[in-house]
């Protein structure tokens, strides 16, 4: 593998994507909303407690229905404190996973479909890079960017979550083991799935917007996870995070394998 060529393409794709408002605006907005705004809003939970009245009983019920491991997290906490821990540690976890998948897919859409749309792909195909090097480089662009945003965002989330909960808990409570599994195991997998899905979507798409819309479907399972957790059907813990990561890695492998069959010079220009 020619790593110099691979990183030249990654550098090019990231530079080009960083100049594209269609790529950068959603990334910046989502990063601010998920990593700063939502965790900071938990500061409002004491106000909700004062206003909620009877509906507090429902929240209490939800918290008591949680598995034993999670119950330990809430032991000795007031309802507001428990709600703060629940929201910041568990409820926002599936939403957090949306960030890498969105970043990966939006950059991959720009890198695969956008390149076709801008007619810059042909010059790349005439270089000495092999099909595999080109494909790996294109995957890496979206994947590395997604992981970088997620990891930087995670650091930001640690700071904001602990700061937002400080008035309630008076201690640093975040992150826990489950979040470390999510960040180190599930996030790389889900970023890979975002890129893999976009490779497949780009083969059918006419351009960046088209690919983005087609590839957006991969976010639906995460929305479902969020609702399952809010409804009390399932909860994120270390085992769930590991298993979920495993399933996503398998799906990622499958989508990348399928994508590698499509991403052949012969096919790209023969259309």
């Amino acid at each position, binding site marked *: 593998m*020619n790593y110099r060529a691979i990183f*030249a393409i990654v*550098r090019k794709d990231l530079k080009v994507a960083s100049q594209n408002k269609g790529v950068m605006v959603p990334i910046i907005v989502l990063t601010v909303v998920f990593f700063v705004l939502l965790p900071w809003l938990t500061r409002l939970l004491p106000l909700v407690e004062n206003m909620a009245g009877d509906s507090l009983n429902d929240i209490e019920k939800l918290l008591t229905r949680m598995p034993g491991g999670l119950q330990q997290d809430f032991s000795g906490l007031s309802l507001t404190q428990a709600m703060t821990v629940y929201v910041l540690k568990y409820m926002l976890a599936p939403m957090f996973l949306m960030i890498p998948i969105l970043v990966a897919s939006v950059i991959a859409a720009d890198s695969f479909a956008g390149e076709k749309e801008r007619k810059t792909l042909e010059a790349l195909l005439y270089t*000495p890079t*092999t099909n595999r090097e080109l494909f790996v480089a294109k995957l890496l662009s979206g994947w590395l960017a997604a992981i970088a945003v997620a990891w930087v965002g995670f650091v930001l989330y640690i700071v904001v979550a602990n700061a937002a909960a400080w008035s309630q808990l008076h201690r640093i409570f975040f992150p826990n083991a489950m979040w470390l599994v999510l960040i180190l195991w599930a996030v790389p997998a889900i970023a890979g799935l975002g890129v893999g899905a976009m490779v497949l979507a780009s083969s059918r798409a006419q351009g960046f917007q088209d690919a983005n819309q087609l590839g957006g479907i991969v976010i639906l399972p995460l929305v479902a996870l969020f609702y399952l957790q809010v409804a009390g059907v399932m909860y994120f813990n270390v085992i769930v995070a590991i298993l979920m990561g495993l399933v996503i890695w398998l799906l990622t492998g499958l989508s990348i394998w399928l994508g590698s069959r499509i991403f052949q010079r*012969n096919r790209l220009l023969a259309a």
Partner: protein
Amino acid sequence: MNTSVITINQLTRYFKETVAVDNLSLEVHAGEIFGFLGHNGAGKTTTVRLLNGVIDPTSGSMCVLGLDPQIDGPALRARTGVLTETPSMDERLTAWDNLSIFADLYGVPRADMKVRIHELLTEFDLADRANEKVGGYSKGMKQRLALARALLHKPELLFLDEATSGLDPVSAHHVNGLIERMARREGCTVFMCTHNLVEAQRLCDRVAILEHGQLVALGTPTELTRQYVRRLDVEVEMADEQIPIALGVLRSLPQFVLGEPAKPNGALVVTINKHESIPDVLAALVQNHIRVYRMAPQEANLEQVYFTLHEEREGV
């Protein structure tokens, strides 16, 4: 004996039911500027893609710089440079970024990279705008930058797909000068796809004419004009008031080829059947008391070859 840089044998490429390249066989020799002529959709770009191993043929074989493009594509592409029909530059990047990324892709030694890029930007008169985004460049500037990119790694074989298309005359002249210098001084073989016949006539050592994917003519421009042009334009200068009489005389001659005579710059241009008929035409005019000041046969050119072949094939 000429060393063959490209050898193509019965090369055919289909796109579904459509044949883009049809049983093409030819050779390109080292150091020559080889013109590949044809109308849009004749199969020129497909041939360039095939020769660089970017797409596979349906049948037939090729050998380029001693390599099989299907098997040794990456090694081959490291030795060829391609200027695509559209400049295909990343418009959100600067000229410098565009070139430095491709220098990495072509494996230009890191130690030489800056010097090489600067050298090319200066050569193509882009050095003072090297740090501007390419999106703000004119079409001519983009085309020059694309040519600079194709030359970054000093290719042995340069493919040019409509290199001067859309360029103003000054830029086109500059690019043509560079192409000529690449071939004549630096020994680079140039495979030039064009439908600019005047340019091909001036630059190319040999040309191939392609129609609907098939090779219809191959040779030097002189060979082709001798072989295919069966009519000759002759410029005849005479007094203006004698032109109507002269036209009457000319139209009655068997050597006169159908078509209305043109009259650019005051001289009458008539089309006759062959070079050997000039004395007969002159004699006929003089016998009819036409005072001929000058009679000059015009050089046959590739344009005439091209249209003769096109008319023959289309049955015009």
